[in-house]
């Protein structure tokens, strides 16, 4: 494993009984990277997250995190890993400060170090004035911040977050990303997160698109978008299949049907619009032209529309 690698996953599979959730997956995440696992629910990203967080055992394959093998050095990995789960992990009956205190003790922090670090984290995340309030009096957004403070408390080298934006309003989401970018810049923390939100994934350095337990694509957002051939043209019509065939016959280009919409990927999409509308004036209800998005990448690589799998 190269020295600048934070996570190396090779041939990892995970099954729940008969169902395979992660299927022979291999990839590498560089140190200092902001890396996103993008996929709809059921794509296997949360299972992979649980394996990487050491919550569930590694069934098959090899994982190395920050130079430690997951099968022999679990404890070493755990002490360098900060984990923020999707489900809340705070004790609602305890105060914010008490929650952080227990967390710090579980990670072997001394009382003095803990007192300093607690103050620092709560200030950094803007929850210092709520430190002595019970968690069950906090709003959802506030709780997410405390979760993040809890995960970062022991200065992990690698922060794992499972769907961190769930339940956050756009402002809070922007704050979260600002904080993540800041710890990456300042402390060189590698950040790995899962999301099902396409617009969130675009903020990452690199994206792994997951589909049915496999890696559908892995690259920078720009490269992924560029990999889709040109612009995407979507046509709504009464009889999509017939129109797709007609387009194919007339222009000798590929037209696919997805969820009742005819779809073309072509460079110079704007020229195609007039060509298509002139050729089939009475068949086209609406036609839209777009630059390729991550959704187009997902469709291109998997043959499925992204949201239909939700």
């Amino acid at each position, binding site marked *: 494993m190269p020295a600048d690698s934070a996570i190396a996953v090779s041939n990892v599979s995970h099954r729940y009984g008969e169902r395979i959730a992660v299927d022979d997956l291999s990839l590498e995440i560089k140190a200092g990277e902001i890396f996103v696992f993008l996929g709809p629910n059921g794509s296997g990203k949360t299972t992979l997250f649980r394996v990487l967080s050491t*919550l569930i055992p590694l069934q098959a394959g090899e994982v190395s995190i920050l130079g430690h093998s997951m099968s022999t050095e679990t404890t070493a990995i755990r002490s360098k890993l900060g984990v923020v789960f999707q489900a809340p992990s705070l004790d609602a009956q305890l105060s914010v400060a008490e929650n952080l205190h227990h967390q710090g003790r579980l990670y072997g922090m001394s009382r003095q170090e803990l007192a300093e670090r607690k103050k620092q984290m709560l200030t950094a995340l803007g929850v210092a004035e709520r430190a002595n309030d019970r968690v069950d009096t906090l709003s959802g957004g506030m709780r997410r911040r405390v979760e993040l403070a809890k995960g970062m408390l022991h200065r992990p080298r690698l922060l794992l977050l499972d769907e961190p934006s769930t339940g956050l309003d756009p402002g809070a989401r922007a704050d979260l990303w600002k904080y993540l970018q800041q710890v990456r810049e300042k402390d060189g923390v590698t950040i790995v997160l899962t999301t099902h939100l396409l617009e969130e994934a675009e903020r990452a350095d690199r994206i792994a698109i997951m589909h049915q337990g496999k890696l559908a694509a892995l690259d920078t957002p720009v490269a992924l978008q560029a990999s889709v051939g040109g612009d995407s043209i979507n046509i709504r019509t009464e009889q999509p299949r017939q129109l797709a065939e007609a387009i194919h016959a007339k222009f000798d280009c590929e037209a696919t049907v997805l969820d009742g919409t005819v779809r073309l990927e072509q460079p110079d999409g704007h020229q195609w619009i007039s060509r298509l509308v002139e050729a089939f004036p009475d068949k086209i209800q609406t036609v839209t032209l777009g630059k390729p998005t991550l959704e187009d990448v997902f469709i291109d690589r998997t043959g499925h529309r992204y949201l239909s799998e939700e």
Partner: protein
Amino acid sequence: MANSLAASVPAGPVVATLAQRELVRFFRQRNRVIGALVQPIMFWLLFSAGLRGNDLGHAFFFPGTLAMILLFTAIFATISIIEDRREGFLQSVLVAPAPRWAMVLGKILGGASIAMLQALLFLALGWLTLGITSSILAVLMAIGLMAVMAIALTSLGFLIAWRMNSTQGFHAIMSVFLLPMWLLSGSLFPDDAGSWLTVLSRFNPLTYGVAGLRHYLQFKDSIVATDALPSLPICWLVTFGFAAVMLVLSWKIAETRTTGDLL
């Protein structure tokens, strides 16, 4: 799971912090505190009054009520492991670098402390109302035995609760297993050499705790015969063995990961 010991965090603070959390949570739930105090006093008065026909006084039911307090409080305290799992707190404990046995011990000692607090309050009440005539040493020994019983019973609760994902399931276990365990401990029915109840009770580890308490705790105006009971060394041995076995089993079960970890 093979772990490099060097990287593991010191166990002491882990045990202390988790035990402390149990106590703080307990005192923050006022109805839990009140219920835990009122119920045994009520049972004690009701059993003593209702079974007066058997010529057994308040003194007879006192050690059994102590055992009940320990049993129910200890075991209810460990139900919180189901809540920890459901509410998500447990997942962050499970990915921490602390040794698993320290986590288990913290949880168990926390629950056992809650049970002990209540049992000590009840003991003080007995002292005030019945007048305990035992020597100070005997009372201290009784407290020591209660502590071992509390650890054994909390571990038993942990063992049952670990694989459960609902508190409803726990209540079923409670009525078919824990309540009979108490009924068959010599707490409620006096020893009778010819009775199958007594024979059966000898297979119940809790019997030895109750018998030990009967040996140690003597009351004014009421002499409870202890001749037929298991001897004190046997009581200690069985109670210690019970605690040790339950602790080790709890530790072992907590090293296995259940699908309930996945929320």
